[in-house]
């Protein structure tokens, strides 16, 4: 497998592109076949879950594979109506759409400060942020809860937003710093020399250039906050997010898998949609930041 792919990785880019031999065609077909296999492996579970969301309970057992015998659209309407999915969705939207801008602003400022200035502790502070990636979340739950309680933030959106923002920072700073390292520094320098203030230079010159990374930080954090489960369960039971809500469906409908998967689909759809629409920005910023960090 590996040598075949390597052939493909180098050959077509070279002279041989013009005269396609039989061998090239065969290699290309093989590669496509293998890639399609990989894609099936990646997507099939999600597709199965999608089909499952339209099945009735008995359909589930009698016809585990294949299309639903009858497309039960009412799985969706029932779950939306009975299981408070709309409330959960509202909580998820609030928490995600407030945390993400906060993370973007804070990490962008920090990334800029850490990379565009030379000072003694910049490396140390950068590593200080990275250490956050290694802390097991199970460790911090109780002290975090104490803090939230002291700040009167338990069971509020603000509590979850605060924690998500703080927890999103290490990776976001890492990405932003990585991305900013790849940017030419002269532009901001020039703006500064022109007499623009530090903030002006930052806002007018740096921010526009950083857009891909900002988009990545936004999408990445948006996805992970939307998907987050344990903190939402423990720190804010009064404002259950979609993940907490659909997790409870398992108990609530104990066996009605169709309803459960309808709930899963409702929760996953916004993320999948956002990903499909923004996939380019997403991947571009991710890779640029990751490689130069």
């Amino acid at each position, binding site marked *: 497998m590996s040598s075949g792919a390597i052939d493909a*990785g180098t050959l077509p880019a070279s002279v041989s592109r013009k005269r396609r031999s039989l061998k090239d065609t065969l290699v290309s077909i093989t590669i496509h076949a293998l890639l399609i296999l990989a894609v099936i492996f990646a997507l099939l579970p999600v597709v199965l879950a999608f089909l499952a969301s339209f099945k009735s309970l008995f359909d589930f057992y009698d016809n585990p594979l294949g299309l639903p015998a009858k497309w039960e659209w009412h799985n969706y309407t029932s779950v939306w109506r009975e299981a408070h999915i709309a409330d959960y969705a509202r909580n998820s939207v609030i928490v995600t759409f407030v945390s993400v801008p906060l993370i973007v602003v804070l990490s962008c400022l920090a990334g800029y400060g850490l990379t565009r200035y030379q000072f003694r502790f910049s490396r140390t502070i950068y590593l200080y*942020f990275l250490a956050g990636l290694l802390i097991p979340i*199970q460790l*911090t739950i109780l002290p975090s809860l104490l803090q939230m309680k002291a700040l009167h933030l338990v069971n509020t959106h603000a509590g979850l937003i605060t924690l998500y923002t703080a927890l999103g920072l290490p990776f976001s700073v890492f990405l932003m710093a990585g991305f900013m390292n790849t940017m030419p520094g002269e532009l901001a320098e020039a703006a500064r020399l022109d007499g623009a203030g530090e903030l002006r230079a930052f806002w007018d010159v740096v921010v526009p250039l950083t857009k891909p990374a900002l988009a990545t930080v936004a999408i990445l954090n948006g996805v992970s906050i939307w*998907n987050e489960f344990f903190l939402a369960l423990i720190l804010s039971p009064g404002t259950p997010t979609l993940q907490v809500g659909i997790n409870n469906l398992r108990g609530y409908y104990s066996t009605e898998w169709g309803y459960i998967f309808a709930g899963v689909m409702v929760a996953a759809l916004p993320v999948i949609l956002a990903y499909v629409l923004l996939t380019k920005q997403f991947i571009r910023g991710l890779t640029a930041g990751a490689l130069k960090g």
Partner: protein
Amino acid sequence: MAIAMPQAERAPNRDRLALVLGIAAAVLLLIALLLMNRLESRYAFLTLGAFVLVSAFFLTLTYPKRPYIAFIFPAVVIYTMFVIFPAGAAFRYSLYNWTGLGPATDFIGAGNYSEILRDPQFRDALWNNVQLFLAIFVIQNAIGLPIALALDTKLRGHEFYRSALFLPVIVSLVATAYIWQIILGPNIGMLNPLLVDLGHPEWQRDWLADTFLTFKLIWIVQAWQHIGVPIVIYLAGLQSVPTDLKDSARVDGGNSWQVFRGVTFPMLAPAFTIITITTFIAMFRAFDIPYVLGGPGGAPDGTTDVLSLVIYREAFGLGGIVGSQYRQGYAVAAGVVMFAFLIVAVSIQAIILRRREVAM
């Protein structure tokens, strides 16, 4: 007096004042955090207010000469308050024999730590984490890298392939749990009927209860969810390899393998470093998929146990309808050991891999 002072002499004073204010701000923040931890809300709010005020002065003073402080300040403060401090505060629990309810009073010093070092479940779980990392490491380099190489040729549909392969990365824990249950589950699972349809009923297994297979399935599901990341990063690494470099190597008479080994692969070194380290961290923190497929007890018979599960189980018990015990103090100690291990291991890796990058 101050008015008469010449401009040049004021600067050091200003620095000194800034330093004092900076220290004062740090002290105030620490006091506020300690107060919060003791649930002294009112004083915590007051101290926080004072902290904000002092910080404002501090930043105003430092901004003209050291603007970067103002840029970094908010992120550092929030991160310290809500990530670093709680982790530090948790450390205290690790010194107590404490169930997790009520006050921790039974101080046992390093007792939990010495027990962890002798605890076979901790050792077994660590070994499982090692296996999990090695498995994913092999898969992402044996399968992920070739896929990235193929996609780098911009073959038809490469954007679709890339997007599709990355999709599992964004599926949530809860959804992953449900999805793999309907595939591997013993009663509603789709894999067994599929094997029957394919004419191999003898291949059917109780996938989630096999002391040998279940953990291997965890590797596969983990790879399913994770592999999009290395593919995308390798791809970016490849795109930074200049095409003419490869071409000239080929013109010099190198075959594909030699070009890969001599030109492409060394250029991938930074990508290799970052992928290896992130995978290492992810696999040693792995919780979701083992929890989903093996449950908090690492079923069957502990064969799917990993460090995060040990911590979770000790902290909150097995859940479920039968009673069980929990030891928050022990769990936190295990978390601390895991954190220390990760710091050391990741630092060593980073040093070795970075050196290798330079050598190549």
